[in-house]
């Protein structure tokens, strides 16, 4: 560095300075000793601002090279940003939102609609970014719980495949261009030429907007189409009451429930509330002598039938006869009918049970059952005096209640006759979902101006000239009614990520106004003084329900005349059902829902042809064999699946698969051929191709035969029975009264085991909270809500079908399903087995086998009894997983965590175009409180340690430990039946301690002395002793 200063600074000579100062006369200002010294150096200083700067001349060659090298290197560094380091901009809030504290999430109430009907949600938002959807405890359709669909809708918000721009014939256009083109077309269309096709809509403000629209364009007609089987309910109500009413139930008052193929735990708008109400009648926290009872007659096994006390596997087409038999028993005249294949004495016992519980029973029909079954249910419920106590009728929820099939039929007829000039499709995907005999795609081509406004550019979008992006429900204002008629406001949390608009906004724009959705909704309700209303409005938004009257109670009584049974055909039966995870196909682009194992079959990513073990045997096929399914003159190929509990000579197919357009995920497995061409093989098969308007739900005359070859199906469970292990305890209610421990004979005695143990009883003697969890299997319906909640909370990636097939799915919670069978019986011979579910996640063993085997101490025990996983320390030897008897550890075999690329395991990167202007949308979904795990790292359930820590910090501020109930794990929160309890087991008064010490409590594999912190409570079935055991659930 000496070269920096080539001219050594001359020393200040103090003698000279003194001399000069003494010679000075008068007042003299001096700036420094140097000035006075008048040294050369000071003169230099005065002349030059930087007197000692190095000039090129003063630098020697070597230093020059050194500096050049350094500056080049530094110049290079600045280039690193963007290439190696993420290019980030941190911009502070200019005006921070109210109540925002950095790092603390905010929660907003809103609603999620499915089939137009609302369920209340609370949306977690981190610095303006919605990250998780939870249930709204104040909303009657949620009661704090959230099903998988609701929770997975957050993934849809950030889905890069979502429609982002207005497109005209595939080219990007603008809303303005569309609106002017559409207005021109509509003006020319004339009366009756303008049609709107939407899904079911219960939004009053949309109804008002539609009225304004129809006023502006006289003769514009509104059609509605939902591919679900809502029509059966609607027509059932028409048959019974002569008009359409909405039916809902109150299971909390029902002691006896008869389900006629109804899956009221999962597929109904009120399912979350129904699950809570029904299971509340089975809680065994206090000694009880009574319990409600569920009889179910089911075709395809569902979680409802499995949960119930008695289940009969009956063909869906036989349910009508069973309904008539029961109706006849309770005194409804039903005419002559068949038996339905169920033992008459059993039905007599059910009828007796129903009669004993007049006013506190429910007979409920599945929505895919024909209208007459619904009518019979209305009659039975009326005869039993259930109306008003357990069965409620209100005015329809929909703005314009219609029979959807008729509505669509009239549209198709008009399209074919050339009457329709302009068709605007709001949300629906009729090209894919319409009955195949309507030939909707052909009819659509006859419409000159056609536009689709939807979340995804799907099959219908491919047939329309215009595609308009729909705003996600977290992006736009709206309103909707819940299953019981409660109205709620849909409150957005984020500005539209793309150019999305709500349905009402589109109609308003077509009228020539550009009213934002907020005004469209708010002005619909605004009355009286604006300031008063504003207060009221804020209250509505805060609580998640609007303080406006519910749908009015409908005072109806059934007519009493039931038509004679109609023969709909003969031969094997085919049943079309909504898919339990991707619904009617609308969630096909959601990786979470595709990978969510179907509750009963544990299949992911596919639909199959379900059949009973006996039917499979007669066809000589087994799981994954390709079969050809012929119906209605059409044929499709799919995988056979042997489903224990399915009726014989009957086949169930789920709708929603075989999608060909609508996003990278839904379009299926891609294989890149040589030359880069991408061939797509859709997931599953399209069951809509067989579904015609005369057999929308149940058809007879299906032919199934082996087609040769295999169709690989990825399931998460390949063994079905417990093989005699003591894993899930279940017993009858009578047995529970005798011995509440439900312990099987071969179970080892825990006290005895602990006596034998060499270890001390109290493994952790820390004086503080000790976390533990208890799962009541008696309440668990197996609905999967906890699985999705965990996935959303803990940033669990989707791995894709191929990886599930390789047994590498990452779900931290497994919902194990076991058939309780005689261990000597073969798995496949199960005609109607008793079935149980068991949520299984890390049980946080006190003496965890995973801990001592990790060579780098990446999994260690906390003093509060948590088995912790230190992701940063993990090197991925996977020894912990080998040594885990519960096999609840999950390993990132590949780079699954990069959400943006998560589906590349089956889709080559080239097939997934960069969208969203390079913003990695799916990264925005991650919960910032949970580490995102990279490749080569083990992960597992942590009892939501981030939530524990948050509560602990809050507690510390108040100088106390977290109180009981302050920590709610994600699975516990989502659970509709409050099956899971978490808390401090050291606190004897906590709920978890009470459950843990319940006589029914046991720990899985406790003979291994792992001392799990998660305990389970056994399942109790309240069987009717008058019914012989063989028909038991």
């Amino acid at each position: 560095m000496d070269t920096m200063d080539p001219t050594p600074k001359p020393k200040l000579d103090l003698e000279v300075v003194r001399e000069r100062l003494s010679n000075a006369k008068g007042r003299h200002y001096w700036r420094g000793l140097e000035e006075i010294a008048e040294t050369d150096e000071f003169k230099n200083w005065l002349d030059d601002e930087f007197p000692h700067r190095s000039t090129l001349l003063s630098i020697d060659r070597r230093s020059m090279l050194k500096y050049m090298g350094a500056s080049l290197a530094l110049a290079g560094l600045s280039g690193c940003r963007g290439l190696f380091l993420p290019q980030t901009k941190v911009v502070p809030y200019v005006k921070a939102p109210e109540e925002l504290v950095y790092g603390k999430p905010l929660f907003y109430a809103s609603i999620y609609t499915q089939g137009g009907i609302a369920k209340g949600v609370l949306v977690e938002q981190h610095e303006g970014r919605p990250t998780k959807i939870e249930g709204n405890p104040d909303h009657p359709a949620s009661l704090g719980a959230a099903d998988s669909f609701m929770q997975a809708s957050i993934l849809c918000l950030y889905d890069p495949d979502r429609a982002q721009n207005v497109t005209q014939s595939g080219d990007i256009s603008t809303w303005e261009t569309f609106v002017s083109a559409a207005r021109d077309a509509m003006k020319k269309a004339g009366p009756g030429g303008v049609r709107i096709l939407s899904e079911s809509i219960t939004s009053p403000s949309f109804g008002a907007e539609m009225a304004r629209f129809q006023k502006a364009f006289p003769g514009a007609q509104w059609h509605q189409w939902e591919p679900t089987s809502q029509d059966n309910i609607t027509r059932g109500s028409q048959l019974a009451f002569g008009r359409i009413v909405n039916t809902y139930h109150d299971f909390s008052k029902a002691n006896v429930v008869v389900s006629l193929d109804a899956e009221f735990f999962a597929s109904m708008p009120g399912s979350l509330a129904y699950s809570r109400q029904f299971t509340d009648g089975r809680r065994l926290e206090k000694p009880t002598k009574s319990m409600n009872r569920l009889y179910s007659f089911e075709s395809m096994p569902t979680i409802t039938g499995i949960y119930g006390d008695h289940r009969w596997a009956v063909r869906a087409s036989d349910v009508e006869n069973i309904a008539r038999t029961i109706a006849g028993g309770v005194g409804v005249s039903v005419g002559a009918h068949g038996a339905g294949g169920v033992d008459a004495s059993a039905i007599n016992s059910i009828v007796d049970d129903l009669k004993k519980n007049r006013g506190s029973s429910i007979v409920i029909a599945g929505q895919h059952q024909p209208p007459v079954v619904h009518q019979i249910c209305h009659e039975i419920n009326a005869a039993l005096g259930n109306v008003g106590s357990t069965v409620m009728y209100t005015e329809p929820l929909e703005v314009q209640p219609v029979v959807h099939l008729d509505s669509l039929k009239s549209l198709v007829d008009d399209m074919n006759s050339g009457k329709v000039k302009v068709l605007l499709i709001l949300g629906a995907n009729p090209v894919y979902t319409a009955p195949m005999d309507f030939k909707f795609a052909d009819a659509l081509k006859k419409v000159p101006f056609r536009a689709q406004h939807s979340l995804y550019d799907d099959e219908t979008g491919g047939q329309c000239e215009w595609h308009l992006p729909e705003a996600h429900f977290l992006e736009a204002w709206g309103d909707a009614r819940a299953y019981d008629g409660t109205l709620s406001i849909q409150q957005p949390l984020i500005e539209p990520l793309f150019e999305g608009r709500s349905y009402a906004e589109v109609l308003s724009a077509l009228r020539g106004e550009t009213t934002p959705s907020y005004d469209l909704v708010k002005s619909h309700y605004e009355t009286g003084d604006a300031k008063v209303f504003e207060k009221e409005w804020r209250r509505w938004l805060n609580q998640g329900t609007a303080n406006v009257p519910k749908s009015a109670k409908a005072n109806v009584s059934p007519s009493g005349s039931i038509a004679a049974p109609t023969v709909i055909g003969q031969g094997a039966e085919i049943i079309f059902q909504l898919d339990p995870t991707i619904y009617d196909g609308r969630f096909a682009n959601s990786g979470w829902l595709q990978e969510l194992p179907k509750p009963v079959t544990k299949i992911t990513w596919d639909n199959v042809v379900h059949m009973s073990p006996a039917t499979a045997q007669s066809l000589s096929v087994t799981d994954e064999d390709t079969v050809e399914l012929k119906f209605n003159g059409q044929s499709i190929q799919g995988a056979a699946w042997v489903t224990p509990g399915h009726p014989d000579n009957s086949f169930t197919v789920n709708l929603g698969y075989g999608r060909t357009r609508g996003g990278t995920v839904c379009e299926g497995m891609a294989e890149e051929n040589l030359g880069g061409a991408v061939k797509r093989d859709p997931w599953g098969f399209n069951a809509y191709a067989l579904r015609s308007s005369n057999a929308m739900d149940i058809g007879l005359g299906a032919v199934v035969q082996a087609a040769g070859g295999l169709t690989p199906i990825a399931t998460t469970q390949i063994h079905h029975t417990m093989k005699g292990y003591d894993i899930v305890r279940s017993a009858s209610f009578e047995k529970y009264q005798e011995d509440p421990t439900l312990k099987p004979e071969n179970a080892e005695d825990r006290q005895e085991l602990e006596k034998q143990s060499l270890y001390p009883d109290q493994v952790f003697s820390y004086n503080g909270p000790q976390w533990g969890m208890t799962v009541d299997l008696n309440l668990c319906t197996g609905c999967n809500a906890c699985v999705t909640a965990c996935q959303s909370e803990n940033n669990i990636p989707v791995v894709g079908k191929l990886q599930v097939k390789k047994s590498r799915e990452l779900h931290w919670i497994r919902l194990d399903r076991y058939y309780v069978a005689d261990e000597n019986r073969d798995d496949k011979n199960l005609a109607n087995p008793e079935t149980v579910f068991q949520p299984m996640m890390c049980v946080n063993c006190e003496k965890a086998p995973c801990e001592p085997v990790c060579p780098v101490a990446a999994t260690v025990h906390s003093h509060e009894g948590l088995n912790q996983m230190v992701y940063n320390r993990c090197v991925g030897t996977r020894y912990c997983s080998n040594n885990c008897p519960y096999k609840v550890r999950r390993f990132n075999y590949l780079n699954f965590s990069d959400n943006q690329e998560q589906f590349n395991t089956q889709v080559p990167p080239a097939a997934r175009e960069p969208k969203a202007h390079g913003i990695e949308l799916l990264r925005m979904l991650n919960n910032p409180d949970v580490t995102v795990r990279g490749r080569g790292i083990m992960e597992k359930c942590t009892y939501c340690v981030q939530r524990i820590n948050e509560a602990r910090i809050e507690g510390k501020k108040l100088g106390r430990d977290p109180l009981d109930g302050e920590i709610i794990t994600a699975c516990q929160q989502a659970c509709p039946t409050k099956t899971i309890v978490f808390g401090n087991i050291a606190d004897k008064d906590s709920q978890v301690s009470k459950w843990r010490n319940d006589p029914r409590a046991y720990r899985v594999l406790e003979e291994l002395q792992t001392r799990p912190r998660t305990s389970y409570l056994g399942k109790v079935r309240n069987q009717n002793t008058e019914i012989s055991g063989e028909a038991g659930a």
Partner: protein
Amino acid sequence: MSSYEDLDPLPLILGDQTYSTIDEQIADVVIDQKRHNKKTWFMPIGIAFLLVNVLLVTVGWLLYQGIGIWGNNIPTAWAFDIVNFVWWIGIGHAGTLISAILLLMRQQWRNSINRFSEAMTIFAVMCAGMFPLLHTGRPWVAFYWLFPFPNILGIWPQFKSPLMWDVFAVSTYFTVSLVFWYIGLIPDFATLRDRSTNKYQKYIYAFLSLGWRGSAKHWHRYEQAYLLLAGLSTPLVLSVHSIVSFDFAVSVVPGWNITVFPPYFVAGAVFAGFAMVILLMIPVRKMYGLENIVTMKHFDWMAKITLATGLIVAYGYTLELFYGWYAGTKIEHELLTWRMDFFHKPYSWAYWMLILCNIIVPQAFWNKKCRQSYFWLILVSLSVTVGMWLERFVIIPMSLMNTYLPSSSRMYYPTIWDFSMFIGTIGFFIMMMWLFIRFLPAINVFEVKDLLHKMHVQKRTHKEEAVATTSGGTH
């Protein structure tokens, strides 16, 4: 009184040998490099080199993609990776046993085969060492986080973990084997240096021989050092594979948590190691005309050890069955069915193949003719090599597939990358062996000379004794 001739009339060195003929036979393989320039050397090393490239491609892809390219899953988190690791470590066992234990037991016959089997040990441990590192999810941190080095975070490895013990066991074993091997090579390097005519050869061997002059003092020091190292590595023979077996024995996995594992694994390792020595020695002996130094007697004795250890292993299998039954738990019974039910369980063929390869076929060695026939030696050794691989397959992935909770039992299927990694390490091993044969003396020159000397001395004393007996009959 006893001598080799008394016990076994077959001599350990055949032909009319002098020290210089031995030098010529062994050292000239290295000195005369032209001897290798023919198909017999280039063919095997060419194939081996191709396989090494397969290994490199596999490792490259593995590091790029992650171990998901293999078939491992949950519950079968260990499969080919650990199977291959244990298999290679086992093969590496014969070397130390021959060098150290047989030295301490003064088994002179080891002199002709110890160098070769030590080299085999070192290369096998190299192959083995690749797997534990590369099988981790994050090898870039695993390679040093498993070592106890002081760091500012104060984080130490988990000393309770058998994998941690593995790191010490295997690295110690490798280091000691390497040092032992090198020390044994020093006098031979000097011989090569002295015999070399080529300038470069002379320089290299001179450098490697560390100034060995063969003085009495050198020999004294050498013998002491060698004996010490032999003493040091003897416990390693038992410890390495015992510790490897702890990976399984200390776990709670049904099929792993068996107390018989340590001795059973050690016996299995020696079994596999000797089979591999036989398998490799036969072609080398043939190719380089070493029939006089590595005689049929050597094979005969190696075959006997193979048979003996094979019987111990068979006893181990019997005990596994016994424990499975005696445990009396459902899961253990389930596991036995899973392994043995040939008609219903998908991988049971592996179990029965293993019984055939490791128990039934080696029984041929009871017959002396089989012990001294190339055909039978190769057949049995190959069978044992395959059988020992299958044994690890049966123990590792097959136990993992069958879990305590039936819901998580899933199937495991290997992928092409599992096989390519395995075949690649075989290629690496063969390439190293063939390079070793070309550039280093594959048989210990001075020890064979020592053996020759002792044989002469013995003969002489024999004669003298005979003379004394006859002449001294009158005393």
